[in-house]
């Protein structure tokens, strides 16, 4: 609040629109301006262009009814890296994540504009088979959501969906996946017991196992530790650290320390706009925008 700026220099076409009449160069007061419905081009670290891109978000907009939740987001998620999205509550980071596997389709009032591509394949084109698309991605939700069935069936659920019933394959995948999710030793003696009897942290690792059972091209994690205690959180973070070698991970978190610990790239979002995107190290040490630094150092948000 100490930096009262002159917003009259920023001109827009009026109502919370993604198409500014001209783009302000000044970073001063950018957050206030965003709050008033102005759009800025995000500050993106160019080193991202050297990476192999798995997921590319291209000028993506999303509305809940008449309320716009995402404004012209463009974002590239590099392969084999952990990309974190941070930002204050309600900034649209979960919405963006759920748009990647089109879970937002389940909400009747959602409209979108723009596109995303997964290895070059459009996600939002007409005629895209959403179910086939989702099979290429794994997702871990905010709250552990194991299914009401045995641990074994939970893990191999994606394979069952694909109609694979060969016991040998299923057993093999189950063991490999649970080991991958660092859960095997804890549950190997009770695979046929209900998954709902596991602790919260175990359930969440089970959900990770389920998400990676079908070897997804990208793993989406929506605040995977928000419902867990510190010990379980640490285990999940270790797990993410291990998984980065084999999987591309896009993780949403409201915990900045977590983002700093586990991710290679970090995107900072504010009120539906991407503000800054770059290497985690530089974002956390010396961000290009003052606003990012303010947020990271806890001065607002």
């Amino acid at each position, binding site marked *: 609040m100490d930096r009262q700026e002159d917003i009259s220099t920023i001109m827009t076409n009026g109502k919370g629109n993604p198409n500014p009449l001209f783009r302000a160069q000044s970073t001063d007061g950018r957050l206030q301006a965003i709050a008033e419905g102005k759009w800025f081009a995000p500050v993106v670290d160019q080193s991202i262009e050297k990476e192999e891109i798995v997921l590319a978000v291209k000028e993506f907009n999303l509305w809940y009814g008449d309320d716009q939740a995402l404004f012209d987001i463009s974002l590239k998620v590099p392969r084999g890296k952990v990309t974190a999205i941070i930002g204050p509550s309600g900034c649209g980071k979960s919405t963006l994540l759920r748009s990647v*596997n089109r*879970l937002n389709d*389940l909400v*009747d009032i959602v409209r979108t504009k723009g596109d995303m591509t997964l290895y070059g394949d459009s996600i939002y084109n007409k005629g895209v088979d959403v*179910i*086939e698309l*989702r*099979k290429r*991605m*794994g*997702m871990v*939700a*905010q*709250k*552990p*959501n*194991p*299914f*009401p*069935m045995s641990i074994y069936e939970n893990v191999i*659920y*994606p394979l*069952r*969906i*694909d109609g694979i019933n060969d016991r040998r394959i299923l057993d093999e995948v189950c063991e490999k996946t649970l080991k991958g999710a660092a859960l095997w030793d804890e549950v190997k003696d009770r695979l046929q017991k*209900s998954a*709902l*009897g596991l602790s*919260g942290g175990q*359930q969440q690792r089970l*959900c990770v196992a*389920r*998400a990676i059972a*079908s070897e997804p091209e990208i793993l*989406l994690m929506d605040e995977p530790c928000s*419902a867990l205690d510190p010990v379980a959180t640490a285990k999940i973070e270790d797990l993410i650290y291990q998984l980065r070698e084999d999987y591309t991970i896009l993780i949403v978190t409201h915990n900045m320390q977590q983002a700093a610990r586990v991710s290679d790239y970090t995107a900072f979002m504010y009120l539906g706009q991407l503000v800054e995107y770059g290497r985690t190290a530089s974002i956390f040490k010396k961000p290009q925008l003052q606003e990012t630094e303010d947020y990271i150092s806890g001065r607002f948000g």
Partner: protein
Amino acid sequence: MNNQENHPPASGVAGSGNKASAYRTRRRPGKGAFMAAHGQPMVWLSGGMLAVCVAMIIGLIAFVVIKGMATFWPGPVVRYVTVTGDIVSGEVTRGGHYEPREQLIDDLPMEVRAATMDLLTRNEGISERMLVRTGNFELDNEHFRWISDFEITGKGFPEWALVLERMTWGRFYGEPQSFRIDGETVAEGAEAAWAQFETYHGEVRKRWQARRDLESKELGRINHAQEKARLTVRQVELEARETMAAHGIDSGAYRQAVEALERQREIFDEENRALEARYAEIRDEIAALNRENDRYEMKLVTFDGREKTMGLAEVVRAYPANQLGIFSKAKIYVDRWLEFLWDAPREANSEGGVFPAIFGTVVMTLIMVVFVVPFGVLAALYLREYAKAGTLVSIIRIAVNNLAGVPSIVYGVFGLGFFCYIVGGSIDSLFFSAKLPSPTFGTGGILWASLTLALLTLPVVIVATEEALAAVPSSMREGSYAAGASKWQTIKRIVLPRAMPGILTGMILAMARGAGEVAPLMLVGAVKLAPELPIDGIFPFIHLERSFMHLGFHIYDLGFQSQNSEAAIPMVFTTTLLLITIIAVLNIGAILLRSRLRAKFIVNTV
């Protein structure tokens, strides 16, 4: 910034000087508010209402259980001598106070009239009386008799008083006199005759049972075979007639049809001859059994000295009522219960068992469940999972909920008009034309009754299923979609299993409602007496077109349509007890199933 000024504790009215005291004044409750402030009256009120509900439930169950359990306990046989010298004997069923009419006292003999008047004056005109089950209907033309206290001059418990439950004419009360085989007296005197009776009664009843089995099973089978053969001929005849109408009387097709008819008639005659022969054989067998049974007779004498000779086969059960110990009484009690549960009714339903009614109730309820659960669950699935929320869906939902409030007899009328007459009539004319004009499906039957009740209980299932589906957390569905499952895969593998306990709750509610419903059944197939069960050993084993007996209807029939209503009333309570028990058993079964499923899908929230 001054935080206190920004956030005053209660309101911003008071000035800063006496802020605290103003606050206290405002918050002090008035005297009258004290009780309400502690919430005590509502605790008492709500607790009291619950207590009343519990008392009503316990009262209802206790009343039915006590009344129902007492019916079969054998009582002693009392022999009263009245002032007029009449002898009234039998079992006392109940008593009470009443105000005797003057006419009754005028009819008394002169010598006791004064004493009676005196007694009545002392008791302010009120007298005690008892209802005595006197039995011996063929001698007295009555089953029961009221007897007043002042009429009684003597009372005794005859040692050899026998109670005989018979196939017809109700109970007989008397003393055994002699026992005869082939018309020759083999035992004289009460004790010896009773000993002989006990010796022979078992085997006579076995033969009688064998005879009844022959009649119902073997003869039934022959009748069915004959009927089937006759219908085959009739079918060919109908076809021939159609051919004639289509091709004319001189056509070759018609001649062929007539030849076919002739052949069929010959086959029929042949089959019929074989069946007739078999029929005669069985008749002979039955006659032989009857002859053997007729050899045994017991001569009894009533307490007022009239003699009666009785064939042993007639007697279902006999016991010397005044000699029984507690164990013998218990044995008779259990025996009567077993007969009640496993036997067919006799004496216009007021005696014997209710097995066909139990069977009918259970089978009808199960068939109903088989129809209503898939229908209701699928309908609810569409409403909740597929249909886009909107006005139309809301209207449909309201309509379904309102269906639950439609009086059940309306469903009965619909079932009769639509299922029996329209659907059943069409089935008859398509597949059972040979049997017409007597209807097969075109009248009340267990299938139509089950369908009618399925319709009646459909809203219950739909509402319960919808609620269960809505209660499945969206995180589970999303998890499934995120794993690449289609909508149906998600419903089949995640939503339905998770909602299953709730769906079963709906099923339980539907069963409880359906099994207890009577009014619509009277229109669509429940009958007073159905000699054939809907499931038996004759092909095709399940006869959905047959009418059936139902416990609820049986209770109504016993209570209001019975000729011997005094004898039927205790049976009303026993049958009610049984109906409650059966519904409870069906429900407990379903609840166990549900809790097993619940244990499988323990609901745990993180």
